[in-house]
């Protein structure tokens, strides 16, 4: 029963705290969240007369009908087509239009990435908050130091700050880079540490937030792949230890 409670608590927490981040809405071209993009897209479709640009209209139509994944795939194809056209065509108007289209696509990608970042930061922040509440209830030796003294609660606070920075597009400044690095280091150390003596819920609260933080904090794909591999082995060992 304890296991069930832990999982139910985790899932409920995720659902409750994702609610505010607007991540359940599908970002199509007629979505509420990007009205500006929709207006720009419609104007570009009307001005395009080229043969290749029929694709754009079709994809635009497809985006409205189909969901998010096809949208992104079509858009990536479209950007490649636009790049080819830029090489071929020499007339000024068309290249301007293409440039506008690629810019639009970049904006869309950035908006999606920002959304994911905010979501991830909020999720990991609340996961750390849950972990600190768990440790607070559990108590133990010097538990206040282990929660507030550079522990789970501090990390939750910093992740909350980083979420605010992501909302205001300020993550590029030195302050937030520094905070991000320190958090990645903390999460990495938490992943390395053995969790032998803890129970299942303790392990979950010890490793789970760190996994979320690592995935969110590391943006480079190569490092992300390494981290995923590492986490995969970590999970195997975790399962092995719990099954004993």
């Amino acid at each position, binding site marked *: 029963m304890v296991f069930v409670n832990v999982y139910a608590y985790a899932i409920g927490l995720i659902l409750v705290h994702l609610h505010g981040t607007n991540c359940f809405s599908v970002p199509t071209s007629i979505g509420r969240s990007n009205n500006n993009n929709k207006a720009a897209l419609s104007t570009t479709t009307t001005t395009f007369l080229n043969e290749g640009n029929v694709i754009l209209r079709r994809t635009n139509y497809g985006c409205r009908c189909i969901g998010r994944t096809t949208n992104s795939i079509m858009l990536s194809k479209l950007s490649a087509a636009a790049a080819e056209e830029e090489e071929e065509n020499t007339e000024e108007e068309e290249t301007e239009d293409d440039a506008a289209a690629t810019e639009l696509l970049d904006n869309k990608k950035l908006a999606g990435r920002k959304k994911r970042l905010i979501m991830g930061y909020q999720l990991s922040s609340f996961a750390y908050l849950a972990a600190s509440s768990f440790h607070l209830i559990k108590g133990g030796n*010097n538990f*206040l*130091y282990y*929660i*507030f*003294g*550079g*522990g789970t*609660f*501090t*990390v939750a*606070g*910093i992740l*909350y*700050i980083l979420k*605010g*920075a992501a909302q205001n597009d300020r993550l590029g400044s*030195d*302050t937030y*880079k*520094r*905070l991000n*690095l*320190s*958090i990645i*280091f*903390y999460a990495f*150390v*938490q992943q*390395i*540490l*053995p969790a032998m003596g803890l129970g299942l819920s303790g392990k979950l609260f010890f490793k789970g937030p760190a996994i979320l933080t690592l995935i969110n904090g590391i943006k*480079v794909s*190569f*490092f992300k792949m390494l981290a995923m591999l590492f986490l995969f082995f970590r999970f195997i060992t975790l399962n092995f230890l719990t099954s004993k």
Partner: protein
Amino acid sequence: MTTVFSDLKEGILSTLQGLTVIRAKSAGYILGTVMLGIMSLVKAKELCTMLFVPSTVSPTTYYQIFSRLSRLSRLGLMTTILYTLKDASDRDRLKGSTFIQLNFLAAGALLSMVLYLSPSIGKSNGPLTALIMLASGISTMTLCQGVSSLKAKNNSEQ
């Protein structure tokens, strides 16, 4: 990949440059940064001795190594917070909501550290007691700074 390393290099350089700037208004934060930085360096040194120069008399266990590593990461976190606050204080940015929250976080962290170390005040004299006094002073300072900048921010909004 290359952007990451150039970013890291620039960040380290700017951090080292920021450490050379000493102003009277950010004296408390400098003190805190130096204190926590020295503590984390001591932890790193202990870790290095355990890993690379293990003593034959009392062999180190994995538990010792991992506890040092864990403490190093927490102290590094606290050092980062205090250095960020020092940087903000140099640039007169302490009224931003980020730095108010960071002030409260630092106050909590140092207060919990004081509570953690307080049982050993009477037993071991000297450096540890001084450390506790310093930490409690910096904790109080960050708390007051956070409250005052919060008030100033509220006043300017109204």
